[in-house]
């Protein structure tokens, strides 16, 4: 099985930025977005996320599958929150203005089920959608635009100790090898009559029948690890600070991006502290409720 990274060189503004700056900016935006429920502010964040996505020049074709899956989850979770009464965090809203009460009687059992559609619940659901899409768009762009060979040095640059950054680098390098090992194991098991697509029996039996795929690949990797450990020990791994093949240096644009991220984050905390950014209910919805 060929395992390919989503990343490819696109020569865009986004890809020319230092990955450390991009990760700091993404985290700053994430921690800023979660401070607000005001749709007007959430839409601003959504706008920034969409701009970043547009600058990354990702095509619909390469992201289609992810969009469909993520949109399904976001919509499902929003509807579920809407249906399960007081949506969201307790401080989002305390008072509700009823727009319409929907009700039905379940056949056979005769239970009465009702759903109150209120102005607050409705605008909360819309804000929640905007907020979740803003976070997701920020997050999706990373794997498509950051070179996998730079992750080790990136996280080292973000303060992760050498050993952990090296382990991260090593993990990314192991992926194609393990993908190939899985493919060889799958072919070998198929040659013995194993059919992963046609697992039969109950749930316990089905899960147990995955062991012939999982166990050989895992144990083989662990056995092979001993040679890697010996080779690294012979080269005195971990004795002194490491050097990296790729060097990352902040340029002006990167520093500006970090400054912008920090500024937005600080501003968000101040605004939240002042009580700005709570759920905003448009007049039109309140009129619908009272009318």
């Amino acid at each position, binding site marked *: 099985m060929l395992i390919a990274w989503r990343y490819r060189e696109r020569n865009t503004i986004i890809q020319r930025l230092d990955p450390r700056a991009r990760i700091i900016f993404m985290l700053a935006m994430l921690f800023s977005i979660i401070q607000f429920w005001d749709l007007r502010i959430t839409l601003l964040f959504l706008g920034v996320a969409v701009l970043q996505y547009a600058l990354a020049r990702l095509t619909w074709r390469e992201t289609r599958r992810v969009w469909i899956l993520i949109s399904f989850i976001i919509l499902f979770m929003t509807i579920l929150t809407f249906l399960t009464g007081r949506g969201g965090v307790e401080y989002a809203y305390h008072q509700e203005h009823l727009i319409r009460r929907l009700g039905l009687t379940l056949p056979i059992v005769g239970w009465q089920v009702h759903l109150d559609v209120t102005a607050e619940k409705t605008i909360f659901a819309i804000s929640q959608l905007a907020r979740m899409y803003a976070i997701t768009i920020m997050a999706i762009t990373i794997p498509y635009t950051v070179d*996998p060979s730079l992750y080790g040095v990136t996280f080292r640059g973000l303060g992760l100790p050498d050993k952990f950054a090296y382990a991260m680098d*090593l993990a990314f390098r192991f992926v194609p090898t393990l993908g190939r090992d899985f493919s060889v194991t799958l072919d070998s098991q198929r040659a013995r009559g194993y059919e992963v697509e046609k697992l039969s029996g109950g749930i316990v039996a089905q899960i147990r029948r995955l*062991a012939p795929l999982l166990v050989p690949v895992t144990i083989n*990797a662990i056995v092979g690890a001993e040679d890697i450990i010996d080779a690294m020990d012979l080269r005195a791994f971990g004795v002194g600070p490491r050097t990296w093949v790729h060097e990352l240096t902040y340029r002006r644009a990167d520093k500006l991006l970090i400054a912008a991220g920090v500024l937005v984050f600080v501003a968000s905390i101040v605004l939240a502290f*002042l009580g700005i950014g709570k759920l905003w209910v448009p007049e039109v919805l309140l009129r619908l409720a009272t009318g």
Partner: protein
Amino acid sequence: MTTQGFTRNRAVVWLVVLVVIVLLMALASLLTSGDKVQGVAPIGVTAIGLIGVFAVYLVTARSEAWVVGTRQVVYMAIGAALYGVFNYIFNTIPMPSVSQVSLRPAVCIPIFFGYVFGPVVGFFTGAVGNILGDFLTGWGVYPAWDVGNGLMGMVPGLVLLFADKKRSLNFLTILVAVLIVIASALIYLNPKVPGPWTGEIEDFSFWAWAFIIGGVVVIIGRFVLERFASIDLAAINIWGTLGIIIGIGFAALADIWVNGYSFATAIIGEFAPAAGPNILNAMILTPILLAAYQAVQARTGR
């Protein structure tokens, strides 16, 4: 100064900074009638969690379980790569599923790596493996779920803090019993609270019984597995289950603040569909993996 001493000093500095921030937030909350500081609740909860984890580390700092040498670095990398690759493969190849239980065999990887190679390897395997899997599928980066997956691997690794597996199980049994007594007592003392589904005042005394019955089942399960299977099987299953509950629970509850889910959405929409199948998959596959590993270990002598 030794590296360990330096790391500990730095950790203490960060802990002090964290405590100061939390105190400032709490003070600001008091001075502004509480509702103006929207972030104080999640920060407080996160801080309590971090202080708890740090306290566990301080108490057990001398344990071999926290050592990170060449061996751990390589196993961290292999564990993360395996978890990422399996996540990708089992998400993309067509797999059958029975009823609402999906097949998630990859979940046994962080639990196995944590249980065998320690909490640091387990945490790294879960967290970085999840990042890798999300990168391969193109899903993006979701810090709360990465940490949740990390906890799923770290908790089973805590077994190495004990002199032997039996003592770890005794500790867990006592912990479960004490937590159940506290939870049940709290519910009985204050059974009528606003329901997470409706927001109306409801009687929750039923949940005290649910806790007691659940706890008794876990404790009986421990002794049955220990008596009729093996101590290793009992330990990996119980520590693994605890890891899944804590890890997925953390990620699902974090989404209440991140995505604004209601408590019901977090539990019904995220925790139950993820934790349930994960526990089932892990309880079946992790012991098989452990048995295979022990056989290889006995043969090679490493």
